[in-house]
């Protein structure tokens, strides 16, 4: 057992924002490869980053923030208080693409594996196990005969529980989700349409105000019903197409 205690939340924040974290993040392009393959111009990558921050990232960040709140359990005894199953349902309703849901659940599993190792006895993990029994538990996820997970815990939901365990507040958590998405786009662009890496770094920093807007919109949320529901139908269509494409560099 390695229960993490006494580590400053900022260190844990940096850990979670670090691409070297072993959770399979190197297979992800935040939808950039599907977008470029569909004909989006490479010069539009910064605009693509901004579009995500205005839409899907708000769903992700809102889900994470509300999941953190529920996992901390202030209202758990109250009648009709939301559970993590409600948070998952709210996220799924706002993520209509099956390919995107599946990707998120696959990534969530990687984070969950780490979470179970780092905070095996944390009450927030117990809430997750209680609210989403067997979800994300190894073995229970695989549809026999395929490599497809049946259902699981989406990445933002696990991040919310991780934040609860790590002592990260909602503002830091929302900023983490938003920053990670922008940086994933930037890093993937270096593999797909290489430019000077200093250039992509300026894109991420230029997205700073958009990242702050995400934080402002979601960091106070506590109710799954209030998670933003901004759709990005074109990205969803690209994601569906990409899931059936061969010779791809990134899985999503």
């Amino acid at each position, binding site marked *: 057992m390695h229960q993490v205690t006494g580590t400053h939340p900022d260190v844990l924040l940096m850990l979670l924002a670090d691409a070297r974290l*072993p959770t399979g993040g190197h*297979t992800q392009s935040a939808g950039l490869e599907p977008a470029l393959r569909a004909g989006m111009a490479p010069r539009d990558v910064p605009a693509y980053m901004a579009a995500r921050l205005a839409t899907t990232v708000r769903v992700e960040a809102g889900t994470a923030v509300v999941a953190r709140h529920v996992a901390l359990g202030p209202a758990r005894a109250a009648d009709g208080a939301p559970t993590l199953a409600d948070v998952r349902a709210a996220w799924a309703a706002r993520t209509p693409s099956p390919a995107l849901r599946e990707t998120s659940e696959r990534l969530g599993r*990687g984070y969950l594996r780490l979470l179970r190792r780092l905070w095996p006895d944390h009450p927030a993990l117990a809430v997750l196990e209680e609210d989403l029994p067997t979800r994300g538990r*190894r073995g229970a996820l695989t549809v026999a005969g395929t490599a497809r997970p049946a259902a699981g815990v989406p990445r933002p939901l696990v991040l919310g529980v991780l934040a609860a365990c790590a002592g990260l507040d909602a503002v830091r958590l929302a900023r983490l989700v938003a920053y990670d998405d922008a940086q994933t786009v930037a890093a993937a662009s270096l593999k797909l349409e290489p430019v000077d890496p200093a250039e992509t770094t300026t894109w991420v920093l230029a997205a700073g105000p958009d990242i702050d807007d995400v934080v402002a919109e979601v960091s106070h949320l506590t109710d799954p019903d209030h998670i933003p529901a901004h759709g990005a139908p074109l990205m969803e269509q690209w994601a569906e197409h990409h899931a059936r494409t061969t010779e791809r560099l990134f899985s999503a």
Partner: protein
Amino acid sequence: MPENTAPVDTQPVRTRSLRLGVAGPVGTGKSSLIALVCRELADELSLGVITNDIYTDEDARFLRSAGVLDPERIRAVETGACPHTAIRDDITANLMAVEDLEEDFAPLDVVLVESGGDNLTATFSPALVDAQIFVLDVAGGGDVARKGGPGIARADLLVVNKTDLAPYVGVDVAQMVSDGEAAREGRPVLALSREDPASRARLKAWVYEVLAAHTGGHHVPQDPGPMAPHFHAEDEDHGHDHAHDDHTHDGEHAQPRDHTHA
């Protein structure tokens, strides 16, 4: 149930298989070697296969279509652009896939994990596999075994594959095997051709040997290491201070296995 009356079956169901990695450069015959192992052993052992592909599930589909194993026991992990990462530093996706197979088909005897084709430096983490085979082929050139690298030097088994092609590509198999043996300081080298029943039998015997050591509890996974160490056979007179990595594991200069000084 009848099998529960057998005296040896008082132990809990064993779910931890022998996890056997197969690494090596692109095109050396990793998938074919796995198909061969499945063909030889599927009737005797409970097997599973995880393939790692950069782009798609091509290798998994090849193995399923080969008809050597129940297709449900063959699963693909997509590594993205980093096949090396997925078997070496961030093994999360592979570990989850192996654990799923072990749970869905418990008890499995052996799970074969095929790496995505990479270069001579790609080796598995010992946290992912218990033992690993490094595959070269004669068609890749007779000098590759001599070039060395962690997989060639320290994988549990080095396979020199497609020996039946040697006459067509002008490679001396005996020399290539001997180069491999020189680089491996006593670790086994197997010249393999799927056309040669004796070589297939030697591969099968090696798998059984490792499996016996694993189930007997005395097999300790070895890390071939991330890079090639110094090789001393031809430069033992140099004035090196012996402070490099391959000494620090045992802190002992007199280990004959790590040296050819004697």
